[in-house]
């Protein structure tokens, strides 16, 4: 079963990190990614640029409206994701718990619909 692990963090806090902590966190992510590639769970994963670079598109009556950023003001923002293959929710949440960002923010774990036949 495929799961999307969405990493939510407070961008302001991440931005305020000092250079050493940032380096340490990146090293932890590299280490973690390597480990789930090796165990065969990894399918994809990326870090997202901050919300300030985001745009939102809506199509209404055939017209596309493009706007700056997402609307909702939230404390935590989507900062990255992993797409994994796990045998159950328990395995997926165990992997999510090992993502370095889980210690600062939170990880939303969502099962993925199987492709339509």
């Amino acid at each position, binding site marked *: 079963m495929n*799961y999307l692990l969405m990493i939510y963090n407070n961008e302001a806090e991440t931005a305020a990190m000092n250079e050493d902590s940032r380096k340490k966190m990146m090293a932890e992510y590299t280490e973690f990614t390597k480990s789930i590639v090796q165990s065969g769970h990894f399918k994809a994963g990326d870090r997202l640029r901050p919300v300030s670079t985001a745009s939102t598109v809506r199509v209404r009556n055939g017209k596309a409206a493009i706007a700056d950023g997402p609307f909702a003001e939230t404390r935590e923002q989507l900062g990255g994701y992993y797409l994994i293959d796990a*045998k*159950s*929710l*328990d*395995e997926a949440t165990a992997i999510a718990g090992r993502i370095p960002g889980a210690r600062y923010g939170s990880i939303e774990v969502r*099962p993925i619909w199987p492709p339509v036949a």
Partner: protein
Amino acid sequence: MATGGLKPALIRRSAGEIGSSIEEIFRREAGRVLATLIRLLGDFDLAEEAQQDAFAAALEQWPMRGMPDNPRAWLISTGRNRAIDRIRREVFFRENIVPRELAETNEEAEIDPSEAIFGDDALRLIFTCCHPALNDEAQIALTLREVCGLSTQAVARAFLVSEETMAQRLVRAKKKIRDAGIPYETPHPSVLDQRIEGVLAVVYGVFTEGYAATAGSRLIDVELCAEAIRLGRLLDSLLPKNSAVMGLLALMLLHDARHSARVTDGGDVILLDNQDRSRWDQGEIAEGLLLVDKSLGAGCQVSPYAVQAAIAALHVRAVDRQATDWPQIIGLYEVLLRLQPTPVIELNHAVAVSMVDGAERALNLVDSLAARGDVTQYHLLHAARGRFLEQLGRLEDARDAYGAALKTAALEPERRFLASRIAGL
């Protein structure tokens, strides 16, 4: 038949007698039969239908042909076969052919009726129903429905919601189990203790719901208390010598033993001091006391349930209020406050302190608790303040405190009790 088949009953029993013993077997085996069917069939809904089919078949066949040697194995194998028939019929209608694969699975596989296998399935079912990825209400509802085998209507009644609402809640929970991939297995050892805590919270939730229904006119809903104790016993047999499990079971037994003495026939509250101790259930008390000792002596980290049970044990062991070992109760509350610092426990600690050091000191403790906020809606805090103030002879203040308690108390019997305290000032 792999299950030993049916044997005509040697002793003729009246239809009524057989009927009631079948009921008893259904009641006892419902959860276990379902647990194994879910594993065999890999689907909650299919397993529930299979269980219903098996029970219907038993009602039809047992009175005529006698009880099978092993009713549980009979119910499981009948249920599984009916489910396979059902799948095959559906596939047949869709594709007009019976796939080979299914035809093969219909062969009589051995169903191992040993306790170990059934125990594993029963645990799997409990851990699945109490999975932390389900919300608290769904966990309790699913456990009552699937593990205890209560009807959807009965579960709905316990939650004071309509049957339709409860049915939807159960459907949503089962859909999440299926779609999110919640596994049907005993948790990994690294998280086992944490998951047991979750299961015990559900069991205790059922018990407290029954012990003091959150709203309504009756104070005790015995059925839910009995279900919670049944679950506690089941867990104790499946996870033997677990301190937390034994502690919780002891706690529930020691509370339940006093249930008939806790309210009058008219449904009014009777304080511990005024309870008729001859109405306490001595069997439950003896079992509870034994479990408290075992739980405290289990040699691992002591569970908050065990400490609460030990406090209940001291109350039960004392002949009356004067003979109660209050200093030890204060000590146990202090242990509990380190394990689980909650306002409720702080309040109970203050009440115990009032018994040793007097109302003045207890009032200070409660006032400092109230000053930290968050508990102003908690009617027991105001009721305790009222009692301390009354003891100190500050009757006007006591009246105000009881009045504040009355404003937030939801249960009719508690409201009547508070009103009578005010009238007695």
